[in-house]
């Protein structure tokens, strides 16, 4: 691995997927994810199967702690439901969806909560997910789209997600 590649890996490791201009250098072992408007490219590390984050789960180790993990996961599922317009195709880049749509989907899978609590949970989860690159969240436009990290799911996982997508209202 050259120094340049090592630097890129260090950057990804400390800062998550890197957003670069489309004409920039392309380090080895990274997936290039072109933004829908082709103005930028995300660099996502291409990890071998036995080095992915879900290995922790297989080993029975606790992963990175997330606040309100259940709600966050549900909101991510709602975002997937709203933004993955073609579940038969690739997940990236998806389309953008309004926060209201996501909220409606979230309400459908968490029906017994009062509106204020649900909204707070939704907003908190969306911001958390946006911070870690799972979704992109435009606070002013109130639109949500998928983040570069979703492209890290492999084919087997995507098929599970397709099941989930179909099962969700």
């Amino acid at each position: 691995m050259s120094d340049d590649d090592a630097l890129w890996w260090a950057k990804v490791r400390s800062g998550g997927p890197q957003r670069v201009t489309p004409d920039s250098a392309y380090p080895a072992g990274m997936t290039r994810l072109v933004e829908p408007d082709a103005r930028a490219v995300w660099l996502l590390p291409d990890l071998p199967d036995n080095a992915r984050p879900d290995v922790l789960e297989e080993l029975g180790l606790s992963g990175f702690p997330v606040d309100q993990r259940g709600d966050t996961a549900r909101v991510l599922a709602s975002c997937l439901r709203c933004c993955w317009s073609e579940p038969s195709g690739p997940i990236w880049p998806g389309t953008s969806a309004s926060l209201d749509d996501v909220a409606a989907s979230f309400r459908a899978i968490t029906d017994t909560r009062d509106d204020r609590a649900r909204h707070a949970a939704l907003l908190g989860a969306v911001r958390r997910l946006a911070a870690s690159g799972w979704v992109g969240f435009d606070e002013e436009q109130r639109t949500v789209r998928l983040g570069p990290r979703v492209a890290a799911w492999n084919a087997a996982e995507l098929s599970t997600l397709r099941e989930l997508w179909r099962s969700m209202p």
Partner: protein
Amino acid sequence: MEENCRRSGLHARLDNPPAGDGILSRMTGGHEPTLDQLAGDAAVVRLYRQVFAVLARESGAMIADVDLLDVDEAILDAFADAGRDGLTVEQAVAACRPFDPQLVGRRFEVLREYGAISKVVDRPNERFHRAAFAPYVMLLFLRRMAERGGQAELHQLLTLEHVNVQATDATAAVGRTSVNRLTRIFRHLGNELAILAAGSTAEQLGEHAQLLWGNKSLITQAEEVHAVVLDRWPELDGECATLRIALAAYGDAVESAAGRLIEQAGTTRALGLLPVESWLSFARGSSTESLAAVLDGFVFDAPAPWFSPHQLTEAVEDGRHTGPVRQPPPRPESATAEPDPQPVPADDREQLHDLAERLLADARSVTVTGVLDGTDDWMAGRRMLADLTAIHHHPDLPYALAWSDGLRVDDAGSPSWVSAGTFTRVSEDEDEDER
């Protein structure tokens, strides 16, 4: 300062240290310092000794105690105060009164021998002496070096060398001298440090840490001089190579010494290379940028959460089933509910006893038929029968229910048939007591 020294010729003599290592055999007047004295002043004396060794060899006197230097300084101070007439030996001794007159006299001789003090007019019976200013300047210079470790002076020296070799009228000889001087300086530094790093304790090493500080810029400065020299006089490549080797040796010594210190600091978490106040003042007095610069070159691992599809599915499933998660409102500490009393088995002894007494109404026994006649319908009668059976079976109640063979049949009555039976008080005494 160096200029002055050089002009006086002292510096030039320093540039040519003695070839042999047996520097001195004779101490000043047999003044032998004890080990304790030496230990206390070692840091100061070490530097003085190094520099004065040459002078001492020639004059037959050696600085073995920091007090002797104070005497020297006092003598030179006295000359400064004396004005243009100069001083006689007696006057100088008088001016340095707090010091032992013999000691002052001896040092006076030493100073005169190496030319720091000379006769006003060079004739046999001249009594007045004058002092050269260069030794005094050098003394101050040494004093400062002893206090601050000489690092700043080394920087100044390097800057001066740089200027020297860059001067338009500089010759190859100047360059050679410069490079040789630097080589020697860095060899000395490197040797001292390497010996310390190899053989001394971490504490000792920490005391000499000033040799470690700022070494990067020292080496850089030396390399600049080296570059200039090599550029101007390519024929000096031999000397330059020696300098490079000395620099590399010094760098290696710094590395190994710093490695040992860091190893020590790593195990004890001692950031004791600098006093605590230095850390504090750095933290308080620095801008955000310089504070942030401390972490330049560090990469922090920032792991992001990972959501597997399995987790997503599970969460969605859970979300459909779980009700609203309500936090209980906060309650004051004192209002916590009392713990539940120990559960006790329900006992209807009192009610049963009352019922039995009411049915018997002072009689010793009543018939079941009579009791059931007193009830309104079959439901009430059934309850009454159940109560009677319960009273009969209660271990604490002294009543008994006995069935006999008779059977009363009444077509129109509510219980259309009733077995004959009696409800009897068993123990008269206990019953009396309870009443």
